[in-house]
């Protein structure tokens, strides 16, 4: 690191965000803001039926030129996802339906218009002849007793069946305490506030297809589009400008995107599609829909000896490029024993196809479900042995002195004090005081409860972990170019994307740490495949560690070169040169980086022998160990429930987390609160409801409830810091964690509130209706 005394801008500083200025003035540039004259809008004719055979498509006379069907997309390859997972069944996914439709909302035809309204008028005038087939909406029925097959060639509706186990579950069958529970985390939308968007046009001068795309993964999108369009990558440029939130929802290649590009190639005109919210709620990647049966075997103190589980994940109609849905299931199973020292585990899993939109990846990926299942089970075991869930939770946890610890699912926990996070989270919500007050309804006529939930979040995992998962793509590293201009300003070109994470700021902080250049003199550029080296993008809580490491490595290369030039002029050795305040300094004097940059570019007569001109370095970074570093946290929720209406109020919410060293504490807190809000959405409000015919019932924000400012309480945050031992600066990723624990913490709080009657809350979201149902079903109601 630079010998900078000045920690005001480097790693650890709560630097205000560099990206805020444009966004606050309405000067952000999202795909829908890109103005290319002559752009044609696309509207899709979508299937009105969940499952059916597609016959003809009736196109109004004279409109044929403005309509594209599958037959017109002759140069497009279907998407076919083939992970290296034994038994995974692939299927062709045509971006416009060919012989069958498999969910309500699937694209059948694309219609062009001079604006969206005209394109939509045309889409409305099209008629698709669909012969209905029985629809599959419930994944358990779809695998056990299917009335129809989605992909006939499979012979069943199961993408893949996998058993994941460790230890010997049969060795604990005669444990004194056996607790079995069914859990269901229902399907939901991802719903970034900016819907999906794509604009493509052929640039005749550059001979390339320029694609403005609202995506988290521009380089991977180029790889995918290149395959699907049969267009070499040097003729594809992806620009992801400002992106209005992703959360995983913009990390998969979608049919609409392929179709728009194909039409732009075919017509030679600029073509765009702006998703509307209804389309988002019925055809964008969806998330969750995990169904568990969990049996825990424990001793009479509630120490769990084994977990035997079944997990069915509803992966929807198609496997999305690049990885398909299998990871959701495998990750849930492997995380099913949580932060606990449970030595025996077996989890039978089914990843099932139904007539619902494809499953994507959503903040937390798989772990909100796994956390929900194990954390509710911990509480159920505690009740069964008559102990407080807090005590049983801590007693089962991997203690600090046992670190590093390899959990039975294969997760290698690196370090941290998990039980301490429980203790502190409980303290922050006044756990003991609430306990003392319980035993009757509170003064306001509502019933109060407190619940805890803990998790680990594997982040910044490299090649070993992705290979083990069977991922077709191994995002084990990130890359960065650091370029010092002739005037000493610095440009960082990175392959990740930032759409709320504040990477324009935190990567500048990393570069400042290495070079002492002022953040105002640093620009971070991303989201354009033409300017940055190849990188995977932003997902899996990886960008700060991975891209931060790559920026650090590239800056170190530049620093060494700067030191060599400086030593030449300061007449000292390179080891005697240190960097601070934008200068190279030695005991004998100093020279500004700007002057070194001038020499390196404009006055190579000032370069020492053997030093090449320019200051431009590209580097990659992968953590020393690629099994991941584990952030962890405990959430504590306090609820007040009206037993007559089923209304739940979150009275208090606290998070105690440890993500190692932190680059920008203000941004970390923002990520935590934002994640928690999404987790509260999963817990209490958000559900993509389908009827038994597979018809979507939550297609507007009036039916699909996002939490607003009145639904989310102030979130208390407590920090613990256990630096990672094998990442640069001791960082751990943390972007997803906030969303993992709320469904479990709130479910535990509700179950706590009604522990006296034995009511349990095992299905999300806990709508007033479900709360009342749970109270009615309670054993001692």
């Amino acid at each position, binding site marked *: 690191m630079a010998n900078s005394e000045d920690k005001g801008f480097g790693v650890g500083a709560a630097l205000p965000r560099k990206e805020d200025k444009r966004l606050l003035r309405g000067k952000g540039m999202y795909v829908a803001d890109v103005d290319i004259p002559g752009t044609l809008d696309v509207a899709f004719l979508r299937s009105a039926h969940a499952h059916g055979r597609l016959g003809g498509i009736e196109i109004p006379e004279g409109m044929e030129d403005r309509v594209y069907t599958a037959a017109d997309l002759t140069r497009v390859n279907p998407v076919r996802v083939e992970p290296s997972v034994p038994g995974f069944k692939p299927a062709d996914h045509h971006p416009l339906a060919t012989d069958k439709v498999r969910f309500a909302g699937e694209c059948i035809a694309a219609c062009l218009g001079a604006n969206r309204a005209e394109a939509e008028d045309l889409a409305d005038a099209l008629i698709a002849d669909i012969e209905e087939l029985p629809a599959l909406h419930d994944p358990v029925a779809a695998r056990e007793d299917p009335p129809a097959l989605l992909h006939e060639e499979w012979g069943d509706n199961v993408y893949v069946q996998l058993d994941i186990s460790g230890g010997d579950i049969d060795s604990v069958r005669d444990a004194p305490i056996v607790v079995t529970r069914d859990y269901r985390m229902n399907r939901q939308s991802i719903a970034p506030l900016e819907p999906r968007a794509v604009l493509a046009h052929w640039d005749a001068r550059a001979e390339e297809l320029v694609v403005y795309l609202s995506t988290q993964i521009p380089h991977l999108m180029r790889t995918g589009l290149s395959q699907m369009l049969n267009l070499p990558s040097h003729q594809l440029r992806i620009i992801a400008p400002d992106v209005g939130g992703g959360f995983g929802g913009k990390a998969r290649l979608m049919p609409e995107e392929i179709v728009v590009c194909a039409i732009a190639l075919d017509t030679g005109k600029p073509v765009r599609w702006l998703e509307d919210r209804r389309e988002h709620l019925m055809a964008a990647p969806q998330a969750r829909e995990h169904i568990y049966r969990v049996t825990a075997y424990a001793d009479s103190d509630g120490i769990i000896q084994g977990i035997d589980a079944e997990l069915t994940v509803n992966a929807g109609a198609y496997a999305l490029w690049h990885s398909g849905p299998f990871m959701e299931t495998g990750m849930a199973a492997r995380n099913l024993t949580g932060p606990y020292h449970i030595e025996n585990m077996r989890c039978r899993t089914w990843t099932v196809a139904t007539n619902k939109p494809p499953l994507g990846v959503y903040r937390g990926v798989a772990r909100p479900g796994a956390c929900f299942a194990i954390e509710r089970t911990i509480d159920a075991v505690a009740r069964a042995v008559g102990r407080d869930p807090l005590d049983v939770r801590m007693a089962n946890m991997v203690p600090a002195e046992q670190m590093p610890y390899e959990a039975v699912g294969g997760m290698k926990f690196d370090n941290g004090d998990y039980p301490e996070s429980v203790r502190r989270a409980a303290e922050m919500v006044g756990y003991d005081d609430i306990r003392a007050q319980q035993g009757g309804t509170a003064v306001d006529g509502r019933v109060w409860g407190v619940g805890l939930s803990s998790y680990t979040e594997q982040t910044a995992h490299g090649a070993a972990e992705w290979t083990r998962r069977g991922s077709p793509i191994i995002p084990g590293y990130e890359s960065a170019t650091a370029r010092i201009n002739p005037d000493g300003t610095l440009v960082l070109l990175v392959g990740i994307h930032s759409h*709320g994470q504040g990477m324009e700021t935190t990567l500048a902080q990393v570069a400042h740490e290495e070079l002492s250049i002022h953040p105002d003199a640093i620009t971070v550029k991303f989201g354009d495949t033409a300017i940055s080296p190849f990188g995977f993008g932003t997902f899996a809580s990886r960008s700060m560690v991975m891209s931060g490491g790559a920026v650090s490595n590239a800056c170190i290369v530049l620093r060494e070169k700067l030191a060599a030039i400086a030593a030449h002029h300061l007449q000292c050795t390179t080891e005697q040169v240190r960097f601070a305040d934008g200068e190279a300094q030695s005991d004998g004097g100093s020279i500004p980086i700007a002057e070194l940059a001038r020499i390196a570019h404009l006055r190579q007569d000032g370069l020492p022998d053997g030093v090449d001109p320019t200051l431009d370095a590209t580097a990659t970074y992968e953590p020393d160990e690629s099994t991941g570093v584990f952030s962890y946290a405990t959430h504590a929720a306090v609820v007040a429930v009206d037993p007559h209406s089923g209304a739940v109020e979150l009275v208090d919410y606290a998070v105690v987390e440890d993500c190692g060293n932190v680059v920008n504490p203000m941004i970390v807190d923002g990520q935590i609160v934002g994640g928690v*809000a999404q987790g509260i959405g999963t817990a209490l409000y958000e559900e993509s409801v389908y009827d038994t015919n597979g018809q979507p019932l939550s297609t507007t*924000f009036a039916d699909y409830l996002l939490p*607003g400012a009145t639904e989310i309480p102030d979130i208390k945050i407590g920090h613990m810091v256990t630096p990672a031992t094998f990442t640069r600066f001791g960082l751990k990723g943390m972007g997803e964690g*906030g969303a993992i624990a709320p469904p479990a913490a709130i479910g535990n709080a509700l179950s706590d509130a009604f522990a006296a009657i034995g009511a349990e809350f095992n299905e999300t979201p806990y709508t007033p209706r479900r709360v009342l149902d749970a109270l009615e079903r309670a054993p001692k109601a």
Partner: protein
Amino acid sequence: MSDETKTITLTVNGESVTKLVDARTHLVDFLRGELGLTGSHLGCEHGICGACSVRLDGDVVRGCLMLAIQADGASIETVEGLTASGEVADLQENFVERDALQCGFCTPGMLITAAELLREAAPKTREEIREFLSGNYCRCTGYHAIVDAVETTLTQRLEKSS
């Protein structure tokens, strides 16, 4: 299909504008598409999310629920106008200070609504601030920082005026 058009004249961010528009064009589409004022965003196009909020004759309205022709003769202010006039400079500053935005997509609508609250110049509890902002969705921040930024701005303004 609609072939109906109408010429409208309105004031946008202090400047008079006369344009021929399709009768069915929504106000926010007009502002974005015809005038290039892309600070107002479309998050739902059915009146729930608040990303399209603009000020019409002093009141906050949903730009996606109004037609441009309904704004004939009106005075519109968008986030660009509020920025240029300096009306929300302190609020914007506090958004930065408190990290009250992430992806920034909700931010213009949030500022327009918060500006309305600030104009009332009356003390507000956090609950009342939350209530006031409840028609503006933010998917990123979890609102805590937004409420902080609005609360701080309000407190500063009340202190200054007292």
